[in-house]
């Protein structure tokens, strides 16, 4: 069974790149959200296994969205996508239940490694 991933990023460029990387690696991208509201709607509608979540979104901060996602779905794995200089936000996100983070600009290997291990942890926890 393919792992199902939701991408949340306000940049179409970033979404396209992430989608290609993940799809090429055999994941199923179940949706793309460009803002916080869409992210919450799509989380409950598509019920993904993992969400990649951009730290800065037009209508909300990634942190608020993370908290919203946790309310809708307490178990979904969330990987924060941040840039250099956002360590404080990332730390707070990890404390609020994010599984891992990726720092932009990211390499394909790094993305797959982090997503892969976040999903693996979830399978071990389920077992």
């Amino acid at each position, binding site marked *: 069974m393919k792992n199902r991933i939701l991408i949340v990023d306000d940049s179409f*460029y970033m979404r*396209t790149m992430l989608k290609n990387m993940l799809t090429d690696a055999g994941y199923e991208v179940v949706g793309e959200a460009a803002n916080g509201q869409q992210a919450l709607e*799509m989380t*409950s509608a*598509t019920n993904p296994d993992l969400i990649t979540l951009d730290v*800065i979104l037009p209508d909300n901060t990634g942190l608020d969205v993370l908290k919203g996602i946790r309310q809708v779905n307490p178990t979904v794995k969330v990987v924060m996508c941040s840039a250099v200089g956002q360590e404080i936000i990332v730390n707070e996100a990890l404390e609020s239940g994010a599984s891992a983070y990726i720092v932009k600009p990211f390499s394909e290997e790094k993305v797959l490694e982090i997503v892969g291990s976040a999903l693996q942890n979830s399978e071990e926890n389920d077992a």
Partner: protein
Amino acid sequence: MKSREQEYREIFMSEALEYYDAMSRHISELEKNPEDTAALNELFRLMHNLKSNARAMGYNQIGEVSHEMETIFGLIRDKEKSFAGTVVPVLFTGVDTLGAMIRAVGEDAEMPPTEDLLANLDRLVQGEEPILIIAESDTDEEAGRKLELSDLVYIQIKKLDHLLNLVGELIIDRDRIMTLGREIGHPALQAAASHLFRITDELQYSVMDARLVNVGSLFNKFPRVVRDVAASEQKEVTLRLEGQDIQIDRNILQIITDALLHLVRNAIAHGIETPQERQKANKSPAGRLTLSAQTERDDVLIRVADDGRGIDVESVRRKAIERGLVRAEVAANLDANAVRAFLFEPGFSMAKEVTEISGRGVGLDVVKLAIDSLGGQLRVESELGQGTIFTLVLPTSIAVKGALLFELEERSYAIPLMHTDSVVALEPEELHVVGGTLMARIQEENVPIVNLKTLLHSGDGPLPAAIHEDLVGRQRIIIVDYNNRKLGLIVDRFLRQQDIVIKPVSKPLDTIDLFGGVTLLGSGHVCLVLDVPALTRLFLAKRP
């Protein structure tokens, strides 16, 4: 085929230009009102996105400048700095320079120098005063200013509709000229005509192409719909979207919007069971709903599939009899497909109780009508207890349709290929009269056959009973398919298969629903296009 790098670059460019436009707008807003928090937050976000995207593309200079700008906008947002004094011109220069750098990427040109700007941005970050260099002459700067227009244009669909209509007219004239060229036999005219053929062909496809949009532009509205309907129906539903990048004519997508909404609401309200029911049936508590699109030859298939309780064929059969749609003895012999086709009859609703969202009294017949108006097909498959799949078979484009041309009483007619199943020639021995109706065995199926001449001339009364002796020689039969029902039409002569441009029938003839429109043939003759749904209904109403 575009390489992925090229695709990334194009996306980067169009998004970066968009960001630059928005940055210019927001920084001007900020200048007017330094307390405009919304503009400030946007500037911060846009810088952040431009930085991330530029770094991913390897445009490090853009990344560096936008990073510094992001930092300063962050400081202003956090009230550690204010948008005033020397900060303002440096940030304006920053935005201008980013614009110039983005253009340089687009033109494969050299990047403008950024050392002075970066030094000043750095000074601002460190809390020092920037060193402003006053340009020696303003005119130089003004002369170098460029106004960028986006590569994308928004266009009203009305204008594209008009363009498409003109192309339709052009194609009709082209076919006429082609035929004349052949008739006159003038080689130069024929050569010019065949060139015209190629050009108009390309023009037609370009215009059709310009109207295509991603199915995703409609699909992406459904997560919200599904969430709301599921909540009000107290169901748990997981939505899956597939094939969002399949392309289809924008107007077709518009026309099927309500139909798709209706099917999705139905699936959640009546198809998918409550979590308790599902658990009893050994299913996961959350129902699965899939919206998918795929292309098949020239058609686009859109499916709404659920894993709910499925359609109970026997209960549909009973209800069809109750409603007087079919006689009990006929109903008993209908196969599951034919029975499910009753779901699309006007006023046939299976809902035991009318729920708020699935619509009062609006049945699948409305969905069916919308699909019919496009010359498409609606199919349903279902397995009791396993789920239901509705398939919308839609043309990719509306302008031109493949059609089968035939002759009846020395007049040409056309039938859209979307509704033709096959073409056969049968000897009289292969046809049998059963209860006044001709029947033939075609591909393991008993198909009623009717002489199209008789059907069109039958007036108000029922069809006269078929008489086997009337059949002389081989019978040319077109098998049409509508709503899972096949019907054979006897015609005089098959002509050919051809792409036609269907024009609506003008008043007062538009009340004759047997004809879906007219088309002009290359010969200059008007050719009526038969409407298969109407023809099938006429036959069912009048069969002896």
